[in-house]
Structure formats: C-alpha cells, structure tokens
C-alpha cells in the first residue's frame, strides 16, 4: 500500500491535533485513507493500527461501526439518497428508484433498506442513507461530496450527466 508523501505529511499533521491520545486520530486517518484509496482495505487497517500503536481490532471495530467507512470499493460516483421520514414524505423512496433506473443499478423490488448497490459497470453506486439534515428541502441526496436539495425525479438524468 503506497502512501504518497503529501498524504503521509497530512496524516502526521492530523495526528498532531490530538496531543492527549493518538488513538483519537483513528477516525480522521481512516477518512483520509478512504478519500485516497476509495475504501479501507485490510492493509489500511493494519497500517493505521501500527501507525497509532493500536491493536488491529481497535481499528476494525470502528471501520465496521460507521456506515460511511467501507471495506469495499464503491462506484466511481457514489450517490446517497436520504430515506428518513421528511424525505420519505417528500418522495425519497421514488427518488432512490429513479436513481437506480438511470444509473443502471439493479435494485430488488420493494427493497429499500440501507445496503449499498452498484451498477454493473462500476460507474455508479447508490446508498439509501439516514437523515442528511436538510428536511425542509426534501427530498435530498449527495453525489460524492456534492449536496443536492429538492431533487425532482425529472432532474435525475441531468444530474447524473454531470458525473460521468
């Protein structure tokens, strides 16, 4: 697992934010590695453990707890659609189905809970996530780090065009 110097320097800088306990840097380091590699590999887990002088289980415990951390690659573009009440009232379920349709992602009928689905060509993946804290502009979604409000089903094809 190659860590470019810039990333290694950034990692060291982030560790310095936690003068009392290096263990606090576990989650920030996992974020940085996932941003760089796209997901958290087995190697990344042991790397972080060694770097912070922890047991590998201490890192694995976090990786499997937080839904945003993934142990497998997602699509080139990752779509998160909110499923919680206000967005559901605003059409979140239909929005998920629309994204799946236009991103060519196979979604079992009626299945709307949590799990991550990928398109066959790996271009897109979609995740039905919990409240994204923008209930007033329901339904909302994120594509990669970009946030979109009041997303109508009609706007989905245009939206996806921006992510090729």
């Amino acid at each position, binding site marked *: 697992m190659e860590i470019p110097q810039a990333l290694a320097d950034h990692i060291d800088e982030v560790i310095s934010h936690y003068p009392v306990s290096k263990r606090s840097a576990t989650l920030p380091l996992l974020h940085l590695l996932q941003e760089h590699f796209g997901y958290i590999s087995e190697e990344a887990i042991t790397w972080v453990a060694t770097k912070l002088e922890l047991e*590998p*289980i201490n890192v*694995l415990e976090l990786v499997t*707890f937080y839904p945003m951390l993934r142990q497998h690659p997602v699509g080139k573009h990752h779509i998160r659609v909110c499923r919680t009440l206000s967005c559901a009232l605003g059409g979140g379920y239909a929005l998920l189905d629309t994204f799946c349709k236009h991103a060519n992602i196979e979604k079992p009928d009626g299945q709307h809970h949590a799990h991550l689905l990928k398109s066959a060509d790996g271009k897109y993946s979609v995740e039905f996530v919990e409240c994204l804290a923008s209930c007033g502009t329901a339904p909302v979604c994120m594509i990669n780090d970009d946030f979109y409000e009041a997303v109508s089903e009609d706007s989905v094809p245009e939206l996806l065009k921006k992510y090729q």
Partner: protein
Amino acid sequence: MSDPVPLLNVQIDGVWHKFPKGTRVIEACSQAGKFVPRYCYHPKLSSPGNCRMCLIEMGMPRMGPDRKPELGPDGKPVINWMPRPQISCAQDIAEGMGLRTDSPLVQDCRHGVMEFLLINHPLDCPICDQAGECELQEFSVQYGTGGSRFREEKVKKPKHVHLGPRVTLDDERCILCSRCIRFMKEVAHDDVLGFASRGSHTYLTAHPGRVLDSNYSLNTVDICPVGALTSSDFRFKMRVWFLKETKSICTSCATGCNTLIGSRQNVLYRQTPRENDNVNSAWMCDYGRLNFHFVNSTDRLTEPQIRHLSDPETTSWTAAVSRAAEDLKRFQPTEIAVIASGRMTNEELWFAKKLVDSVKTPNYDIVPRTGPADDLLLNSIRNPNTNGAQLLGLCSDQPGAKLQQIADGVSQGHIRAVVALQEDLTEAGFKAADLERLGALIVMDILPNETTKRATTLLPSASFAEKRGSMINVKGRLQRLNRAIQSPGNAREDWEIMRDIIQQLTGANSVYLIEDVFKQMAENIPQFQGLSLSRIGDLGVKLEGVVSAEPVTASA
C-alpha cells in the same frame, strides 16, 4: 495503622444494614441475602453497565431545608425513590441510600431484559456446553416470563468461529456483555477481542490477523455467562451436571492456582479456576488448566512389576514391596541414592525423607524444573512443591545441586541402587545405559518412561487427582489437594507404598490415615505446628518462616 473503613447505613427492601464504605451496591445486596441477577458485571473487571439485568430501584434520603436528612417515624431517613430504575453494578453505596431489589418495577425490568436477550438467541440448549451452568437459563427460570412472543426472524451470526487454538466461539449465543473483551484487555494484557458491526448485528470477533492464543484465553470461557465462548478441549465432551467437582490445586507450577476438578466415573474432563484472592484471584493459565489429560491415559501403570533377569513380570503388592526392601538392604548407605520430586505432596515427601533416613544415604535430591514465567500467574518454577521439598529436607536451598554428582556416582559405579520417586531420571541427567547396570532400580511413577522400563521394581502410584495431601506454593502458602477419582487398576497412593517399604526395612509401626501423617509432620516441623489437613481449609494457610524457593539462576 490506618483508620478503619467507615460503615454506611443502607436500607435494602425495608431493612437497614451497615456496609463498609466503598462496597458496590450489587455486592451489598448479595451480602444482605438479596442476590441481584447480572451478566456483564464481574467483581474482577471494570463495570460497563450494558446488560441492564441488575436494574433495581434506588433512592437517597430526602433532605430537609436544613440540608439534613428528614427523619421518618422510625428515626431513620425518609427515602426519595428515583422514578427511573438504576443499575447496581457501577455505583458504590452511599449513606442513607435505599434499595428495592424485588419490587414490581424491578421484576418487570428483569422480564424485559430476559425477553430481549432471548429473542435473537438460538435454541441451542440441547447441544450447548453451557447448559447446566448457563446464567441465561438460570435467570430465565428465576426472573424471566417463560414463553416467547417473538414472531420475527432471528438475527443470524457465525456459529463456530475458531478464535484461537483453544477457544471456539458461537456468535449467535453471545449476549454482548463484553466480559471477555475486558478480561483480555484488563487482566491478560492482550487486547485482541472486540465488537464489530453495529446495533443488533454487533458480533464478537478478533482481527483476522490475530488469534486468541494467550495463555489465559480459557478464562474467557469461564466468565462467559452463556455458551458463546467454549473450550475446544471440553466442547461436546460431557454434560456439566454429570460432573463431580472436587476442590484442589493445580500442580503444573509453583503458583498453586486453586482449582475445581471436573470428573465423572474416574475420568477427568476439565479443570476450572477456584477463586482465591491470595493466590490466583479468579483465574488460571491455559497450560496448567489443560495439563490433566495424562491422568486419563490408557498407558497408565496399573500393576506392580518386578524384574528378575530380563522381562518384568506383574506381581502382588506384597511381593513388590518386599523385593524393594530386600534390594535396599543389600547395599551400603553410600551406595544408595533417593531421587524425590518437587511434584510430591508434603505427606509423600515426609515418607521419602523417612526412607532416606532408614537407608541412611547421603545421596538425595529433587529434580528442579523451570520454564519461562509470565507476569501473571505462571511461575518460572514448574514444580508445585519445591518449598515443601526444602522444608521436609529432601533438598537444599539449591534444588538439584547434588543431582550431577549422584548421576556421576551411578555412571562410575559407586552408586548401585537408586530409588526414583515420580521422576524420569533420564530427563534429570542420568544415562539410560547407566541405569541398566544398577543393582536395583526402584521406581514409583504413573506413566511409562525410560526409567520405568529399566526398573527392577516398578510401583504404580497416583496422579495429583487421585490423592489427598498438601503442598506449599512459591509464596509459602500451604494448600491441599483432594481426591477426585480413584487410581486405575492396582495403582496405589505414593505415601502408602513408601510407608510399607519403610516398615519392611525397619520393622517399626507406622500410620494408616493421612490425617495422622499430617499430625506427625505438625509435631515435628515448627511451621506446621497447630495445623491439620482440615484446618488448612479450602483456601490454604500462609506459613511463617517459609522462604520463597525462587530459582538461583534467571529463568529461560
């Protein structure tokens, strides 16, 4: 001299009690005879308070405007009861605290927790090792509702995970109390276990790159309240309600961890630690715990044998004892050597010394045994009773110092008769070929080895699980063994064999009860004065003036 710990007044189910300050609430309840059920709490570990089984009602004295407790008609503080139930495992008692351990609210709390624990629990009781000593079963009967209302699909998790060489895990049975994780971190200092995933899907695991192979891994099986963590050695072997449990001590090193031997119909099935805060707390190491299978071996020596010219032949005890005594009478004192063992009980060592004195030989010692120590329980001295051997005069403060000289004597032919007691001489510096040239080789042991093969008189004796007796651990604590099973075949207890030989040698009368053996020791050894086998008790007695037999050289 420190100040005495103050006593605090606590009301439990309407009755006022006094407990020392610093007593945990859940312990105070037990002491008052009101056991509070619990899963995640363990007195030797930190308290996370996650199982919620120990919820009880708690209250504190109602304070008046003068900031003093209001007193009721009985002159005791009036209790303000908290509407929310509180866990009792993570708080110490406070002055004037009120507790209700069995109110309708408390009963409903327990019904709730029991129901929640059982909805995803697999119906494994018929095949689960924990049955019969399972707290889920026991508390379900005492505090649960009986009958399931759960209609949904249970959560599925991995069923036989080999966490390590000695522990098998069933994740579905796990109630996520975290005792094992805390034990490994806080006591065994090997933070190898943890929880993965989240919510109801959380499961216990080790990182794929690590194994639970600590020498203390099996303690997690002891403290697991359910059958999630099981001993791979014991798995599926025996139902625990068939096991007879005998209090004894481990004989694999000088620590002398207190144990319970689980046996049935003269077969040993397992050893588990017995709590003794002066020796081993609530733990024992895996090495000592599993070091009992040799007792069950079908190779056990069961018949006395004597050898005339070549092949040994089975004989009676009378004949074997006579032969041994006759052989010894043939030789001069300096031609005889007695090699005793640091694994013998005090009672056996008492007779070994009598034997030494009867033949008046200057050639005697024990075989030292060392190994790496850890910073927990495993001692570098791997003989359980070196202190006893020293106290009873079978060795100096340098055990084994005379061994080489004796082995040379055998080699050179000055020593022509050797008595080997519970030791394989070929592992103690003696050459097998030299042993073959001895005029007499009298061996008392339990399993065949290179020495027993060359014995002129072979005396099958008893393992640690087949005898009563006492031993002194490395810290000078006198502890006793109890008999769990009978010796196989015609094997006999070591002290009785030696007593018979000595009687043949000297013609003197002797003792016939082990209590009387101890009485004799107590009359002659100042450190044992006033003691008896029964007065040693289940937890042993610290002896005055017994020096720790630490090895002179550093351990490996």
